[in-house]
């Protein structure tokens, strides 16, 4: 049974904010909430290395919401930017040109579009080189900053502007979500975790645990997205909660490749999650697409059956 060691009660979450309000991001952005919580452990002595995506709008001249530093790179190479910053800091400190107290954590911020596809070479390289950095993927399951197009993170059954539901494809997206967690895990980095903003203690605990490892520390954050998933911004906590409680977004970690699920939901039917969002509305009206919904439910069931087998066996 997975136990939180550092963050047992909500009161233990620091009150100090490190990502200040007033950015251009959408109201109710689940990714920003996850980052806000993460930054409570990461602190201010950070350089965020950003890939093109929604979060690129965080630092928009002349403003930045961070008390730490920021470098915007490209959509395909933020981990390489992290490599350059990390290496340069190490070299400058080793050569005595920068005092150790000036050292920074290097944190990549990338969306799912960058993370799952374009920056995969760059990420794979960084993990293989055992780069000491954090990777924070805010996963809203589509190219959000361009207005919700299909990405490899888009789940089966979601409607995006480039996976519209049609007579040929009534379910919208026809492919399954790419399993980036397992792609990362195949590289055997010391720490990987999934997080969701509605589970702050789980999230904070994972960032605290990650801090004890040197090397790549990779986070996949559920970014419930009112603008793209089509629900009221006030419902972000509920949507994020149901993503976890229906079993669609497993909370887990992998330490040196060994996976533990950090929260085992008593699974609710997937409909409860799907029904909240406009991107799945076509599964329910004008006719209920029973097969498509059943397909989603079966995949969730199969996933958790597998979890039960493997983690009980350990």
């Amino acid at each position, binding site marked *: 049974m997975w136990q939180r060691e550092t963050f047992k009660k909500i009161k233990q979450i620091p009150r100090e904010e490190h990502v200040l309000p007033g950015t251009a991001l959408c109201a109710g952005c689940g990714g920003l909430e996850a980052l806000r919580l993460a930054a409570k452990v990461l602190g201010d002595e950070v350089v965020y290395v950003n890939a093109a995506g929604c979060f690129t709008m965080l630092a928009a001249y002349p403003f930045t919401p961070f*008390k730490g530093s920021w470098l915007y*790179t490209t959509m395909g190479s933020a981990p*390489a930017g992290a*490599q350059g910053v990390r290496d340069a800091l190490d070299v400058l400190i080793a050569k005595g*040109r920068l005092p150790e107290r000036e050292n*920074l954590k290097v944190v990549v911020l990338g969306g799912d579009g960058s993370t799952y596809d374009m920056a995969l070479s760059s990420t794979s390289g960084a993990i293989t080189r055992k780069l000491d950095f954090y990777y924070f993927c805010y996963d809203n399951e589509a190219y959000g900053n361009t207005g919700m197009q299909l990405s490899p993170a888009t789940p089966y059954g979601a409607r995006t502007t480039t996976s519209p539901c049609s007579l040929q494809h009534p379910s919208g997206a026809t492919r399954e979500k790419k399993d980036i967690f397992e792609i990362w895990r195949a590289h055997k980095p010391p720490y990987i975790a999934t997080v969701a903003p509605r589970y702050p203690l789980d999230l904070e605990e994972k960032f605290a645990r990650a801090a004890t490892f040197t090397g790549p520390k990779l986070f996949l954050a559920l970014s419930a997205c009112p603008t793209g998933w089509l629900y009221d911004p006030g419902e972000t906590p509920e949507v994020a909660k149901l993503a976890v409680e229906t079993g669609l977004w497993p909370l887990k970690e992998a330490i040196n490749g060994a996976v533990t699920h950090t929260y085992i939901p008593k699974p609710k039917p997937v409909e409860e999650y799907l029904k909240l969002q406009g991107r799945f509305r076509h599964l329910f009206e004008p006719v209920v697409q029973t097969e498509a919904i059943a397909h989603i439910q079966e995949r969730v069931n199969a996933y958790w059956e597998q979890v039960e087998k493997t983690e009980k066996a350990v």
Partner: protein
Amino acid sequence: MEGEMMTGNLAAAWGARLADVDYIPAFPITPQTEIVEALAKWCESGAMAARFVTMDSEHSMMTAAGAAAATGARVFTATSSQGLLYALEVLYSVSGWRAPLVLVNVSRALAAPITLEPDHNDVLAARDSGFLQIHAETCQEVLDSILMAYRIAEDERVMLPVIVNLDGFYLSFTREPVIMPDLQMVKAFLPPFRPAHLGFKASAPHALGVAVLSGTPYSYFRHQMHLAAMNALEVHREAAAAFEQLVGRRYDVVEGYRLDDADDVLVMTNAFASKGKAAVDVARAEGKRVGLLRLRVIRPWPADAIRHALQGRRAVAVLDQNLSPGQGGILFQEIAACLYHEALRPRALCSFIGGLGGKNLSEGELRTVFEQTAEAGVQGKGIGPVLLYTEAEHREMVQLQDLATEHRA
């Protein structure tokens, strides 16, 4: 003979070594690979106090290079051709970050068709990236230009990255005598990199490369880059004077060869300029008053130096070792533009395209260039673009085509 025999690639590696760089993100590509091999060896043996990292692509390599320079390290990297184009997106970012690193490009023609030998479509694709460009003719000049490039790039008035270009094969793998500058002289010429306005540190957080939300700040920052690039002309002049004083060799933004009383002038760049100079000597021996202008600094564009060298000539021929399909020679356009307002502008401007994909430039071709240019000067009417291609080469091509289609017969 003075100096050590070494290839252009090894001279480039020595440039980075003498510049005492801190960081080398690398990725192999022919014909550049020998540079990073030499540097890897020296970093491993402790001969250099630099961190060497093999990246996963040139795109990542350039990102790491720029990010490290933006953090305050002196950075060197090298690539060629497809690699430069793969990194092209990042070149614009790195110059926008005002990160003053040095990138050596070993010119190689671009696919398709895929080839290994040089022309300059690769480096000229980076022409508008905000990187300054120095194009070298000899192995010695490769080494010396890298040292000058760091001094210019890191100058507070410039703070822009620099590409030093050398031709693949013709220079990269050709051994020439190279005189190694004395390390103390190099130290006097190139002070340690201590940027006042770059670097990520806990006590002084800052945001770099941020989004702008309108054309107003965008125009401002891009124009700042233009002004900084223009400042590089003056900074280059100072660097050239200091380099000459310390090391004894002089490099200007352009190099004139037998220009004094030349009626007609051939404009060239890079290693093939040596062939052009030899052709000038031949033509001079025959009593023709011709000379050569070698463009060494391409960005910033040394318009005044070019105008000064070409004003009052009868005819000017630009030999572009590149081709912009549907337009012609890239440098021809720039030469023509900067002579437009010149009162004593040449009577004829001729455009020749030669040496594509490393194709040889024969004595006969260069003789033809001088003849056609002289005739154009007499007529007062320029010609071109003319592709230099000999009859023998044409016959060879026909033969290859026959072989390629043989099965149809």
